[in-house]
């Protein structure tokens, strides 16, 4: 298709502006994280007056960033693994079986995603506090409570996407596995899961990102020892002296793992979205 000049020029201008808009904060984050404090406290400078890695060394002392990092990593990883496992089983049931209540389940699970988080926050807060008082199981303020909460956040989307993905895998594969002596669960684990691995990777990436980036529940349901990065980073910004270069350095450090993982695996996410979501 030979595009006319008007199209090519509009495309060029639009894409240039959009790239600028997208990258502006990235530039600010990277450049400011390498600036001396005098640079970020005064007028903004496009070009730093000098480069320093000091902020990257200081961030670990100003707030206990390493502890927050470990908390975030533990919570997000556990939530991801559990969420994917639960979603795989549920999606297999929805994709391969006809049973009573199937539609009700699918619609209910999906619709929970549209409810405002604030609606769950207050009751869940009280529920966890009350469970703690009644049974001694510390859900409020603990990593376990946060894991339990987060794993349900990505669950509806994961179930939905995996069901679509499993639907696209021919049933003959299940039959073949059964002929070879696998039970239904064996067929799922040995045949379906490997065949659907791009979809499962996509869902895992989504679950990890959801947990790594969540702010609302993290800020209410954590204490000093279980605080995650989402809350911890605000520690720099609300002090009387804001070390903006350190804030930017810390932001970059916490972003690198997810952004790298996402960009490496985004191919799968796009494929997964095509197979599962756009139907």
């Amino acid at each position, binding site marked *: 298709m030979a595009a006319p000049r008007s199209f090519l020029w509009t495309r060029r201008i639009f894409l240039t502006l959009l790239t600028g808009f997208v990258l502006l904060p990235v530039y600010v984050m990277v450049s400011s994280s390498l600036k001396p404090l005098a640079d970020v406290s005064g007028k903004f400078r496009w070009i730093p007056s000098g480069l320093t890695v000091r902020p990257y060394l200081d961030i670990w002392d100003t707030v206990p960033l390493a502890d927050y990092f470990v908390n975030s990593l533990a919570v997000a990883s556990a939530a991801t693994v559990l969420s994917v496992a639960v979603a795989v089983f549920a999606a297999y049931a929805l994709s391969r079986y*006809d049973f*009573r209540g199937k539609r009700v*389940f699918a619609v209910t699970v999906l619709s929970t995603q549209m409810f405002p988080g604030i609606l769950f926050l*207050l009751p869940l807060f009280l*529920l966890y506090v009350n469970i703690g008082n009644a049974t001694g199981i510390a859900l409020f303020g603990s990593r376990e409570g946060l894991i339990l909460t987060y794993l349900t956040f990505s669950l509806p989307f994961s179930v939905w996407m995996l069901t679509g993905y499993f639907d696209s895998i021919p049933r003959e594969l299940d039959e073949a596995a059964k002929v070879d002596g696998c039970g239904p669960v064996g067929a799922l684990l040995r045949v379906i899961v490997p065949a659907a691995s791009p979809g499962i990777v996509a869902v895992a990436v989504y679950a990890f990102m959801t947990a790594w980036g969540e702010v609302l529940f993290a800020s209410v349901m954590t204490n000093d020892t279980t605080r995650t990065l989402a809350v911890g980073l605000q520690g720099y910004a609300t002090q009387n002296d804001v070390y903006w270069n350190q804030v930017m350095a810390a932001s970059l450090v916490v972003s690198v793992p997810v952004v790298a993982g996402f960009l490496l695996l985004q191919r799968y996410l796009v494929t997964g979205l095509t197979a599962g979501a756009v139907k």
Partner: protein
Amino acid sequence: MTQTAVTQRSERAVRKAAPGEAPAPHRSGRRRIALPYLLLFPALVLELLVHLLPMLMGIGMSFKELTQFFIRDWSAAPWAGLDNYGVSIDFDAPVGQALLKSFLTTCLFTLASVALCWLLGTAAAVFLQENFRGRGILRTLFLVPYALPVYAAVITWSFMFQRDNGLINHVLHDQLGIGDSPLFWLIGDNSFWALLVVSVWKGWPFAFLTVMAGLQNIPRDMYEAAALDGAGVWKQVRHITLPSLRQVNQVLVLVLFLWTFNDFNTPFVLFGKAAPEAADLISLHIYQSSFQTWNFGTGSAMSVLLLLFLLLVTGVYLLLTTRGRKSSDA
């Protein structure tokens, strides 16, 4: 309901679904029918515990006088009837007035943000449909705002919007000479625009991703046929690309609407616990008023009202879009 009742009912359902097949031996048949429920069980329990039960509690709490004295044992809180709802929608009193203002701000903000996200996402996806040099790099770059954790990205924006040492004022005031003095962006009326910019920056890549996925379903030969008939690129976009995206757009707009309307993270990280009045989105408003006064009863009533509004909008939207789809199919 007992397990056997569930099993029997599902057995009937399965039998109805496959009338031609010979009945399986009883024991293995029953096991096979219990299996889908077993597979769903963990998901079901988790959904009940973290979503449905709290939601029902939330509705219950909205009818109670749930102040800080009853946090430890909320069931002991006195019954309040519809008082919490009364307070929430009494628009002459301060609480209701603030809620109404926040609601209207959120409506306006959501409209603007969804429209811009959709526009940028669709335009970018259409412009990247054809292969050209740099396309792969742009596609990856455009997903960066989606991949960055909200707090890291929004903290960076809050630095950029600082009055004295931020990039925005440096460009607008120092370099372009706009305004007599640097503007405040994170307090006062300008905060609405600051929030909108951040929300669009964060939100449009999702529209881009979805539209891109939708574009893959449009058959190439439709474009070729149109080109043979003499339709230029712009005409093809208008008459093939956009109409083909209708169903994708219907889902996309709904999802964007719900996410933006419920967004808590962006204003919370940008402004802290209390947003300026001009950018006081409803989720943060309910959070702030609940945890400031510790009156969870009123907070719950507000949340339920919000939910009812969202259900109503979603219902009407689905009704309109599916009806439109049926008539266009016929």
